[in-house]
């Protein structure tokens, strides 16, 4: 990660060529200690010497093979176009997220991949990001909703790259064979789930990773209580003991009997594979999740429908569509180079290059060429463009400390024991109060 921290390393040469004596050895050891600690101290003070202006480093969380390859294609194109080199440091997706705080305060790369919305604004508020309003004004093809998701207190920080909608995914051929109908309302949805369960192909469900079930929670909340309530709840303004929240869990419990058993021991990959093997009928997922688990020649068989309506007042207005993109860390060593690369990444061509390798997402830029899109991608674009509101995701719409230390456990507890909703909501509310009482930054 930190290339510069080893630049000053001096290999102690005192031990070579001489006959070893005790004192020589000690002297060598002292030099060795100095050589090891000194550069570490120097780099801890900040900038290492120099910094190659023709090289831009990119911190990547795209550790899954499909996106990793797709990003490589986009960066290679930039290298050819600009004559500069792009050095990508890829880290495991979840590790990258969990270490983000230390990463940004340590020796971050010039540019790094991150998420839009609250989860970006949190770090902007802490002063760990570089404002890019100056280059944002030249960007074209980004909607106001996207600009909103890239902005904190009137300043832009984020370059959106692609997004993917969450919906109910299933195999087209399985629905045809079994005579299933896509559900539009909650009652139809429950009836469908019940029918599937009766046929021995239950609803796929997994939450070992802690986040996949959040999508279902979000959607029930958005459909039953509306987008504004979701926003306020995530911002810590609404109470978790509100009957509206309990209603979300009560509705969710109706679905529980029809899930495949053992959700807490199953990763999202395994749930996606069960969908691919026709062992399960449908699943609430983001678009890349089933996509990455299906072999390429079977991807055409993936279809989805919008999460069903619960309260007609809110219909199917909101769509959960997390946006991924790029940020520059305050400690970036090559801000100019990073901005140049950002300008490239904001073009429709750069997005097309990526999507060619990873057709499980959709370009954010309106000018991107959609003629090569699969039917699924086209349907996604339609779903999102018809949405009245776009939410990100539970762990992207609220404070990271709340999402990771409270909500993961709360939802897993609910899945393990769906009966004690009162106790659960009280516990979440008490923890929320302590966490939100601490200021950001």
């Amino acid at each position: 990660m930190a290339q510069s921290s080893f630049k000053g390393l001096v290999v102690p040469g005192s031990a070579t060529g001489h006959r070893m004596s005790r004192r020589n050895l000690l002297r060598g050891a002292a030099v060795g200690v100095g050589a090891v600690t000194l550069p570490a101290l120097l780099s801890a003070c900040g900038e290492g010497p120099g910094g190659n202006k023709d090289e831009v480093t990119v911190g990547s969380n795209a550790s899954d093979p499909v996106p990793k390859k797709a990003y490589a294609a986009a960066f290679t194109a930039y290298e050819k176009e600009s004559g500069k080199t792009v050095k990508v440091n890829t880290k495991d997706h979840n590790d990258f997220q969990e270490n983000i705080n230390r990463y940004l305060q340590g020796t971050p790369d010039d540019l790094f991949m991150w998420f839009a919305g609250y989860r970006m604004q949190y770090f902007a508020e802490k002063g760990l990001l570089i404002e890019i309003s100056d280059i944002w004004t030249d960007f074209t093809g980004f909607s106001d909703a996207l600009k909103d998701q890239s902005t904190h207190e009137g300043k832009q920080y984020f370059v959106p790259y692609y997004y993917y909608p969450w919906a109910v995914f299933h195999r087209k051929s399985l629905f045809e064979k079994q005579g299933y109908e896509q559900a539009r309302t909650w009652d139809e949805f429950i009836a469908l789930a019940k029918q599937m369960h009766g046929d021995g192909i239950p609803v796929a469900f997994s939450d070992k990773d802690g986040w996949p079930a959040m999508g279902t929670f979000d959607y029930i909340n958005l459909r039953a209580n509306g987008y504004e309530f979701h926003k306020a709840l995530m911002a810590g303004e609404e109470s978790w003991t509100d009957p509206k929240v309990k209603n979300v869990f009560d509705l969710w419990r109706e679905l529980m009997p029809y899930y495949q058993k053992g959700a807490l021991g199953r990763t999202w990959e395994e749930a996606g594979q069960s969908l691919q093997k026709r062992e399960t009928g449908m699943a609430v997922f983001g678009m890349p999740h089933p996509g990455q688990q299906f072999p390429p020649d079977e991807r055409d068989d993936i279809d989805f429908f919008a999460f069903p309506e619960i309260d007609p007042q809110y219909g199917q207005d909101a769509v959960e569509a997390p946006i991924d993109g790029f940020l520059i860390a305050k400690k970036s060593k090559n801000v100019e180079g990073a901005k140049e690369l950002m300008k490239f990444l904001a073009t429709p061509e750069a997005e097309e290059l990526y999507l060619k390798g990873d057709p499980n997402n959709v370009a954010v830029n309106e000018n991107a060429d959609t003629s090569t899109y699969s039917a699924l991608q086209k349907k996604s674009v339609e779903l999102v463009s018809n949405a009245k509101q776009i939410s990100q995701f539970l762990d992207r719409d609220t404070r990271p400390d709340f999402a990771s230390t409270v909500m993961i456990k709360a939802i897993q507890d609910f899945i393990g024991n769906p009966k004690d909703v009162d106790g659960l909501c009280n516990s979440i509310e008490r923890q929320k109060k302590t966490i939100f009482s601490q200021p950001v930054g």
Partner: protein
Amino acid sequence: MALTFPRRAGRRRLRRFTRRDVVVLGVLLGIPILLDIVIIWGPTLASIGLSFTAWDGIGDIHWVGGDNYKNLVDNYPAFWPAVRHNVLWLLFLGLIATPFGLFLAVLIDRGVRFSRFYQSTLYMPVVLSLAVVGFIAQLVLGTDQGAINTILANRDDPIDWLGDSSINLWMIMIAASWRHVGYVMILYLAGLKSVDPELKEAAAIDGANARQTFFRVVFPTLRPVNVIVGVITVIEALRAFDIVYAVNKGRNGLELLSVLITDNIIGEASRIGFGSAIAVVLLTVSLGFIVTFLVQELRGARDR
């Protein structure tokens, strides 16, 4: 400390250390002491200090008094399960895995057939890191694709070995014991080999049966090994972390104090004050064991 040597030596008119030696000794002792202070005592005291604050690692540090501890006990749902799991872990290793390791060591020491083969097979897992043991546990116990569930072939109602919070801790403790037993066995085996055979002969002449010989004669002479094994068992139980983290990040029935500390301090969350409070709890528990152990040791050394 090093400076007292020459003075005392001088009084005895036996000046064995030159000035240079004193400097060398001073440096050699000084560096470890300095490192000890910087690496161990500094962070320890910092943790204790931070546990009374709220801090996200970047902005200002806010003094909150005992709030973190109050929250921990009253509001943090993962805390008491974590304490319970750590205690269970300790009991499981101490009462089941460790005695079982001793049992195997005795069997092998008595020279059962193929004892060398058993010895190496049982010792094999010790070379694996606990994180790797965690991955192996997942391959064996996974819900959909694990070896055991594949053999049981019960697809409609599979046993969720690692996801069901009422059994997953036991599964993980068994996996951890797999490694622990081998470790304990090898230590006891070394101890048993060093027991003077004449002791056993004397016991046999006195008419002791095999059980009496072991419990009355051999086991007491293993005292130094017992102490080491006891310490290792306690350390393993308190520092348990990697195996549950590899399995499910230490959630859903696998909460441990060490995991809660990590989650709060180094995760995206960065509740450093709150995490430090948990660390102080773990420190207090560890100190309890360390102090007991030291007192026992010092007393034992005096008695001998």
